[in-house]
């Protein structure tokens, strides 16, 4: 808890855009004091100011999770800034599309380091602080490709998300005795800024939403609300689980809303 504001405290990685930005905004307006990291100083400061102007408690911490020592530093700054850490949300991730034949070892390591290894390092550094909370939580943003689907051209990304799911389950068992729950959220197709650009071509968006049973793409808020649930004290008996938030996209052979 943050003593000054009486709020639960959370760190969200990759918080300056996309799903992460949605989670930052959502939790900042739902009784959390928020720290969030990212590499984009300008976007980070803009979001921090926006939340503060709305009366929220937020702090942007510039951090490149792949740099040696940066994760420990990020956790330390977070705890110093917020006064404690109740919830860690590891959302930072990259998805550079590349066919198998074109993926270099550097590409592979870059994706695995950012998406998966940083999750391990963050959990390791955050666990002692989360253990001090009366309800410590880790929530990983995985993907439907973690437990379920495969995506051509994203083998390294898919492997990293499968890895996140395994990391999540093992940590759930190992950290349970410290009262920390560890869960995941597996988003389907979420309409972020970068995806909106990708689907700018006329008709393309309709062709995608047609195969989603709820008849729309997801929004960052959909993921954020699920994170809020898993981070809440009400979810204290849930651990080692991944909630699929995909509008029914992975139910096969759906013909769409008719």
């Amino acid at each position, binding site marked *: 808890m943050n003593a000054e504001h009486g709020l639960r405290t959370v760190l969200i990685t990759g918080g300056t855009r996309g799903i992460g930005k949605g989670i930052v905004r959502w939790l900042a307006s*739902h009784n959390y004091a928020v720290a969030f990291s990212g590499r984009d100083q300008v976007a980070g400061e803009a979001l921090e100011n926006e939340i503060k102007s709305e009366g929220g408690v937020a702090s942007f911490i510039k951090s490149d999770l792949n740099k040696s020592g940066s994760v420990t530093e990020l956790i330390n700054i977070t705890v110093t800034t917020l006064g404690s850490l109740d919830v860690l949300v590891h959302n930072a991730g990259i998805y550079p599309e590349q066919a198998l034949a074109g993926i270099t070892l550097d590409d592979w390591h870059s994706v695995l380091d950012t998406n998966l290894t940083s999750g391990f390092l963050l959990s390791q550094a955050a666990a002692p602080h989360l253990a001090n909370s009366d309800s410590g939580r880790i929530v990983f943003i995985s993907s439907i490709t973690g437990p379920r689907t495969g995506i051509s051209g994203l083998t390294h990304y898919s492997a990293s998300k499968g890895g996140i799911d395994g990391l999540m389950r093992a940590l*759930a068992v190992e950290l349970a005795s410290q009262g920390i729950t560890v869960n995941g959220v597996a988003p389907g197709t979420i309409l972020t800024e970068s995806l909106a650009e990708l689907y700018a071509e006329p008709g393309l968006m309709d062709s995608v939403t047609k195969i989603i049973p709820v008849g729309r793409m997801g929004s960052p808020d959909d993921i954020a609300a699920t994170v*809020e649930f898993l981070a*809440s004290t*009400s979810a*204290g008996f849930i651990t*080692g689980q991944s909630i699929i938030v995909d509008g029914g996209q992975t*139910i096969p052979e*759906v013909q769409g809303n008719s």
Partner: protein
Amino acid sequence: MPEMLKLSFSGSTALVTGARSGIGAATVDVLVESGISVIALDISTPNESVTNPLIRQAVVDVTDEALMSKVLTGFLGKGALDYVVNCAGIHQQSGLESLSSQDWHRMLDVNLVGAALTIKSALPWLRKSTHGAVVNVTSLESDRVVALINPEPVVHYAASKAGLAMLTVSMARDLSRYGIRTNAVAPGFIQTPMAFANHAGVAELPEQAVSRVPLGRYGQATEVASAIAFLLSEGASYITGSSLLIDGGFSTT
């Protein structure tokens, strides 16, 4: 203390079966706390101590389709229904060899067919909702064998819950045409009257079972109810065909 999760429901109506005890009763309480009007159905006689005007009770066996329709017509008339929570369920230990045909049918009729018929009976009103959602209560045992709490096999119970789990996914597709979402919660070891009445070796159960749960305790019915409430809520409007296991990490070990 951190505040309870706030859910956005905007004056909705819910139908809860198996509402008299355990997870069903906790679900009624959690939904009513959020301002939802609840039709609470159970095979047992209504709880006379209930005075909250948001709760309307009736005795219905979920296998009785005609009575279910009649009761819903009486309660809902020309109105709408927003949520259905299928909590009604029975449990029994038996291997296949000693299982009577009657017990087999009763188990499937209540746990699986009853849930399907409840949704079917409710559909005329559920279709009128702008945010319809269904949650089925399955079980940890819907996709794995849990010998620890069942000295005898539970072949028909497990089959009924596995059926309910797949019914949930299939219904998610089916009902998406009406904008109705369908999800499941799968409870593990939850401290309910049924859990304690139906598992043999009850005296030893608490210590034995809890020692195998990473979080080191039983779950409370309210915790399952909170997950049900979340899956019904606006925040879960992009979740359909999903299942959430609530087992303190038991199945992960």
